[in-house]
């Protein structure tokens, strides 16, 4: 088969790659492959990834420029091909602004670490006491989170308020506050929201922020009643026991949330005989546990205090829990709570705990 010379006149970009260049580039590619395998064995920390990408890009460039002729071809073909990588980069970068910066969800990774530093330790030791610093913090938060419904002066006349029923609270008036007008009660409202209204729970805000908001909002009207120690206990602050804010996590671990969300919703347990709450344990149960777990421990109550959407999670019936059978587990859960899900009652002593457990045992026995 004789060799024909290609006709070049009207044929534009018909560059023929010489065999030497082809083999040379091929050899370079093989060499670079060896290099990248070798470097992967050398520990360069974070640099390994970048070096590997760099070597791969050099190889890719060799293939594109020589084997695919871009070096010798019309420039527009190279521009066309290069544009695709630009848009791929846009896809990656903008998606990363979401996936790598979700500071409010407990996903671990080097890039999320610095985003999570915002949800730091509380800076104020006793945020349940109003101070000018907390008030100004509250004012700033109010302008971000609340103004849309509650209005710039707190009169419940914000731009989004028009269509809401019930209407947003007018903070300048003293009457009608669903949970009461003490700071701890406003704090509770911020944690749980008000079911049946547009007032959402704001549990994802750090506790300190919620206290700041509570103080600010109360400052818009007449001075509120002060909190008693019992009031503060109800929101998890043990003034006598050192006054530490119960360190509730502003969020729950993702895995816990996933498991919870993919579980079918618990149904209320059927209850047999009604157990009278006359014992000390019974009275304690009614005061501290019944609002979430039900008077008979039947569960399925859509008011889980804490940080979660009230509608989404319901308490399971007490009979579903392992806690009753084991004193140690019972005490641990009741004292420490379940992070993000159930507040702990750290102030109970051993006697109270066993009385409570006795009552719960009776409730469980009455469930089918």
């Amino acid at each position, binding site marked *: 088969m004789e060799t024909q010379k290609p006709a070049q006149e*009207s044929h534009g970009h018909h560059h023929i790659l010489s065999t030497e260049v082809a083999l040379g580039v091929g050899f370079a590619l093989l060499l670079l492959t060896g290099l990248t395998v070798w470097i992967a064995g050398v520990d360069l920390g974070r640099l390994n990834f970048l070096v590997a990408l760099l070597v791969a890009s050099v190889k890719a460039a060799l293939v594109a420029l020589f084997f695919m002729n871009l070096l010798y071809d019309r420039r527009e073909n190279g521009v066309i091909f290069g544009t695709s990588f630009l848009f791929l980069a846009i896809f990656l970068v903008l*998606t990363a602004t979401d996936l790598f910066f979700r500071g409010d969800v407990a996903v671990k990774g080097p890039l999320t670490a610095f985003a999570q530093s915002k949800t730091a330790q509380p800076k104020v030791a006793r945020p349940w006491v109003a101070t000018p610093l907390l008030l100004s913090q509250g004012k700033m938060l109010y302008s971000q989170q609340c103004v849309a419904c509650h209005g710039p002066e707190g009169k419940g006349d914000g731009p989004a308020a028009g269509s809401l029923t019930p209407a947003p609270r007018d903070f300048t008036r003293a009457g009608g506050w669903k949970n009461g007008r003490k700071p701890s009660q406003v704090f509770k409202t911020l944690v749980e929201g008000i079911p049946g209204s547009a007032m959402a729970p704001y549990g994802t805000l750090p506790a300190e922020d919620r206290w700041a908001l509570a103080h600010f909002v109360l400052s818009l009207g007449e001075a509120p009643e002060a909190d008693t120690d019992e009031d503060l206990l109800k929101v998890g602050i043990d003034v006598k026991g050192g006054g530490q804010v119960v360190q509730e996590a502003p969020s729950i671990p993702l895995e816990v949330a996933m498991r919870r969300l993919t579980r079918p919703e618990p149904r209320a347990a059927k209850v047999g005989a009604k157990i009278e709450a006359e014992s000390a344990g019974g009275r304690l149960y009614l005061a501290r546990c019944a609002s979430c777990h039900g008077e008979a421990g039947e569960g399925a109550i859509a008011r889980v205090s804490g940080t979660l959407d009230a509608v989404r999670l319901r308490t399971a019936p007490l009979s579903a829990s392992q806690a009753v059978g084991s004193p140690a587990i019972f005490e641990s859960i009741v004292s420490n709570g379940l992070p993000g899900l159930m507040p702990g009652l750290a102030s109970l002593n051993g006697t109270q705990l066993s009385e409570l457990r006795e009552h719960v045992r009776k409730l469980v026995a009455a469930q089918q």
Partner: protein
Amino acid sequence: MTTTHHHAHHFASANDEFEAAKQGMWVFLVTEVLMFGGLFVAYGIFRGLYPDMFHEAHKFLAVNMGATNTLVLILSSITMVLAVTATQRGRRDRAVLFLVLTFLLAGCFLVVKYFEYAHKFHEGLLPGGYFVNQELKDPKAPLFFSLYFVMTGLHMVHVLVGMGLIAWLFRRTARGEFGPQYYTPVELVGFYWHFVDLVWIYLFPLLYLVG
């Protein structure tokens, strides 16, 4: 002797047709970049979120098989280029030879892949919900293998299609349909094949060499 190729009537000249076809192939490769690119974005996101898991999981991949396949594909790109230049120079016998070599090297790639996948299935290193390996304990590890199988699997489908195209070229070259006056399909299939190599050039270090 090459059979004469008549350019389509809506093009002013054979050269216009060639340039249009070539640019069409580049636009098609743009779509391939974006399609594979989506998988690379998913990879990038999950690797950024779970770097330790990626490091642990990649140890369960056979680096030597991956490296072998990289070398095989690079060699096949070399033979593909040589097939194109042989056609451009009118050397039909060499063109046929290099096309056959390219095809065989691609076949090699598939064989190595077969052994790799078989080993994974045997170890229970399967995607997502089917992951049953006991050694790799990280709860997110199934995601790594999902990405591994989808990315290398989609790439393998492209290798298969490429082999079909090379076989088609082989037939037409043997029949003398290509030569210096007309070699467009050879060049364009060449571009496709180099692109398949390009994807693997990135897949290999990102999956097998997670340092």
